[in-house]
């Protein structure tokens, strides 16, 4: 499971661009802060490489190890 904290995310899209599995999608709507917060839509493709969490400059992402369906 990808947990993305909308209070920390600033919508820079680094996670979306660098995820090797194209897990994230651009949201069509703006949030309260005027930010497009990426949606971790294709979670079944996630390889849990943790790259998105390591690159996110705002510590907004957690990649959870165990999927409890």
């Amino acid at each position, binding site marked *: 499971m990808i*947990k993305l*904290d909308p*209070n*920390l995310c*600033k*919508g*820079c*899209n*680094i996670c979306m*661009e*660098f995820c090797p599995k194209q897990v994230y999608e651009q949201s069509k709507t703006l949030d309260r802060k005027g*930010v497009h917060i990426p949606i971790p839509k294709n979670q079944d493709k996630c390889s849990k490489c943790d*790259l998105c*969490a*390591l*690159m*996110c*400059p*705002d*510590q*907004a*992402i*957690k990649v959870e190890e165990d999927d409890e369906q």
Partner: protein
Amino acid sequence: MEETNESPFMKYLRKDRLPNIFCAGCGNGTVLNTFFKGMEMAEMDLNNINMASGIGCSSRIPGYVKCDSLHTTHGRPISFATGLKLGNPNMDVVVFTGDGDAAAIGGNHLIHAARRNIDLTVICINNNIYGMTGGQISPTSPQGSYGSTAPYGTFEKPFDLVELVSGAGATYVARWTTVHPLQLANAIKKALKHKGFSFIEAVSQCHTYYGRKNKMKSPLDMLKWMEDNSINKRKADKMDPEELAGKLIVGEFVNKNQAEYSQELYNLIEEKSGNRSKSIKSAYMGD
């Protein structure tokens, strides 16, 4: 196991100060993550780490970390860090600095700390510009790049920080960028464990100033530029200087063992006075 929805790095951060002040997509936050990752890989304890920084966007990093830190004057963090290390050589002292902080106003402190081989880990976030003050040209701005003080492009020849500190005597030197977070974390791990002056150049994006003035407006444009222009040292060693013009050579440049300054100083005190100095340390310890 603690069950939270938070980033694995949140436990090291002063949560009440977040979100951080950096522009969306600024590389400073990524470099901070790689520091935590490197610290975990080195199995170092944040309680034994003391950070020092100067002034600049990059120098605001220690303020977000749950450890003791000194936010000092512009260009001087290495001097404060030297004092910390000599007061208590058992402490792991880490400096976060910028290209302006370390190589312009603080250039002298940088080369002399390297010359002395004092056991500090200096992480210099090189965004090729003065970010905090509005995009002035720094000593690392590439020739021809634009800044608010170079509307026609700078004609100055920049410092290569890796060459500068290597020449001055640093005993661990590496350069990576924010598109190489794992390699950067690994270099920080080695730098933390290294006994001597360690210098990490973390090339990073200031899209707000460097990017905007140099046709790379978004953080993604800048990351792409770093990705496209980075060449590993092993490959670069076999290439001509002309082929390497405008490229970022990344990798490990120096890794050697030499006498370390704080150890030498404490040994000398012991030799001359007959006992291990605890004079400065005892000042912290009350009765």
